[in-house]
């Protein structure tokens, strides 16, 4: 066989979840309720074939007039009229009765028209009513006749069928599904008053595919963009790629901090900076990316909380001129409004940014905003974060995630409801400490994977025009042995004045 045995749909992202395309000659059934994008998908399938893969095609419509179809396609950037003029596309308007009779005849006029341009693809919009759609034996037979007629001509056919029962979470099997080789379901899903589109490959004979409901959008001037379900397993290489370089570290950019964290963060490491709002997390992030720019390393900061202009203004107050670094293409700031965030599309956006910009440092501000939009209880957020961590490790990026911990004084847990500290390499806790009549800022390195860490709380300060620094310890602290305390495990330690045998424990100055 000299020709490739897979037909690339050419639809962005679809050939990733149907790896390499669809086996040639498969009858593809696209089912969904009104407005789910069936016609758009069918037209794009034929358009991409004719314009990108030298596979002319036929579009058969029953209800939509061809001039409207062409007008709508033009809005998506597809010039169907031009393809018709070039003899690579034919749009045929007919009725279901005629088509049914045509496909039952060996000398079909329609298939003859297809042969004249060497068509390899055909899209028929609205076959459900063509074959009856009542699930009867007769309608299945009619569908079978239709598919036989198309296969006789070696056409890869995409057939759209309306299935109103498939909206939302409903799932119902159409009789045509058993005959079709590939079945694709399109849905509009309702989530807390927002609507999103999803695509699911129900079956595809002759190939493996990514199961589950993926997201997709119809983009003006572009067409369909499928976003792989963020939970779907990535290439194994992504997880294996985290080359555990035990020597290369990137400076945090915070004076005094690198000394505490053994010189900086390891490449490919994941760091969470946790603390209540206003504690200085964003300032630390700005210093982290500014330090990268100073060293000629690219940094990406993705904010869900503050718009780009606001971030630049904040940076200026701590003496960082982001505009200059952005012009030098060393820093890129991205803001995405968190309302109605669609996790698959969002992850795709980050992935594309990382591939294109190739940063060494990434800051995400903040995890808590994701949590409040995606929910922290289900798997969506956890799987999203898992995919994000894997992406950054594969690319050997030092990633810093800010996380707003709601506790103002002290912390009962490092990441609150998120319960994902096991995925994180380093955790920096930022705390207010009330001393006298003022709050002082304390920093504790609670976790640093593959590093010795003293877990001492260090005082920090943020100075206007200069940013944050970690203050050196002025006086050595004498440590007491555990035996100098009581009730350690009960989390209410008390200093003993006498040891168990009446003596003052060793190491005590008392």
């Amino acid at each position, binding site marked *: 066989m000299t020709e490739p045995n897979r037909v690339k749909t050419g639809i962005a992202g679809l050939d990733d979840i149907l790896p390499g395309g669809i086996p040639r000659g498969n009858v593809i059934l696209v089912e969904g309720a009104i407005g789910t994008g069936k016609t758009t998908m069918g037209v794009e399938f034929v358009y991409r074939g004719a314009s990108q893969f030298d596979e002319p095609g036929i579009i058969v419509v029953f209800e939509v*007039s*061809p*001039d409207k179809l062409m007008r709508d396609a033009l809005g998506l950037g597809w010039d169907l009229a031009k393809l018709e003029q070039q003899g690579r596309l034919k749009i*045929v308007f*007919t009725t279901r009765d005629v088509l049914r009779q045509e496909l039952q005849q060996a*000398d079909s*006029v*329609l298939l003859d028209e297809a042969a004249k341009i060497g068509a390899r693809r055909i899209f028929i919009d609205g076959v459900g009513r063509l074959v009856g759609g009542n699930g009867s034996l007769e309608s299945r037979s009619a569908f079978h006749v239709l598919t036989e007629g198309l296969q006789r001509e070696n056409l890869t056919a995409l057939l759209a069928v309306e299935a109103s029962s498939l909206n939302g979470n409903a799932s119902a099997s159409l009789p045509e599904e058993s005959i079709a080789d590939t079945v694709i379901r399109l849905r509009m899903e309702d989530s807390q008053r927002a609507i999103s589109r999803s695509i699911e490959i129900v079956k595809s004979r002759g190939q493996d595919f990514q199961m589950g409901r993926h997201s997709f959008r119809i983009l003006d001037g572009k067409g369909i963009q499928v976003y792989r379900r963020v939970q779907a397993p990535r290439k194994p290489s992504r997880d294996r790629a985290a080359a555990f370089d035990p020597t290369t570290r990137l400076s945090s950019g915070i004076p005094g901090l690198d000394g505490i964290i053994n010189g900086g963060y390891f490449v490919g490491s994941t760091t969470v900076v946790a603390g209540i709002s206003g504690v200085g997390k964003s300032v630390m992030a700005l210093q982290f990316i500014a330090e990268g720019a100073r060293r000629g390393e690219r940094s990406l900061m993705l904010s869900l909380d503050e718009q780009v202009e606001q971030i630049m203004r904040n940076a200026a107050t701590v003496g960082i001129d982001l505009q200059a670094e952005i012009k030098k293409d060393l820093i890129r700031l991205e803001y995405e409004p968190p309302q109605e965030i669609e996790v698959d599309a969002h992850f795709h956006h980050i992935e594309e940014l990382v591939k294109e910009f190739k940063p060494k440092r990434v800051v995400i501000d903040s995890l808590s905003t994701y949590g409040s939009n995606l929910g922290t209880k289900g798997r969506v957020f956890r799987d999203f974060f898992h995919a994000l961590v894997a992406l950054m490790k594969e690319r050997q990026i030092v990633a810093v995630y800010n996380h707003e911990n709601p506790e103002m004084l002290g912390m009962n847990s490092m990441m609150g409801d998120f319960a994902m500290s096991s995925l994180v390499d380093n955790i920096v806790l930022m705390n207010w400490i009330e001393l006298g009549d003022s709050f002082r800022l304390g920093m504790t390195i609670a976790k640093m994977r593959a590093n010795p860490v003293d877990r001492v709380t260090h005082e920090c300060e943020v100075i206007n025009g200069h940013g944050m620094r970690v203050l050196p310890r002025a006086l050595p602290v004498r440590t007491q042995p555990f035996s100098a305390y009581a009730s350690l495990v009960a989390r209410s330690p008390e200093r003993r004045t006498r040891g168990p045998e009446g003596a003052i424990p060793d190491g005590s100055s008392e």
Partner: protein
Amino acid sequence: MPSERIIFPPINERDRPEEIKLLLARISVIRNGCDLDLLLFLYRHPRTLLTNEQIAAFVGYEMKQIAQSLEIFIEAGLLARTQNPTHAARMYLLELNGPAGGDYKKLLESASTRPGRRSILEALRPGRSAPEGHAQNLRLVKRASGRG
């Protein structure tokens, strides 16, 4: 080969009755409302696979009228039809790239608006519509295409 798409402009001078009459005189195959509406239908559906009955139903005229209009269009080289008498449905392909293509496009532009279409129908009304020389023009078309 299908003709280039037209972006219809707003109503303008072209819809004046005298302009319309001149245009119809040049085109000659548009004799009545059925011809006009059939042309509009075929413009929106330039490649159709339909029976005459179905076309009549879509356009809204008697089948006999539609059949006559189709024959006129085919004879004028405006429409191509597959030759397969065993099939009830025929494939029709509108061809607007011939010598008179520009005039057809102007007519379609005018007919795309309600006032424009009314002006054309008014000009086609019996007693007014048959532009002088219509029959002669039709004979010339047939002779030129070797079908008359």
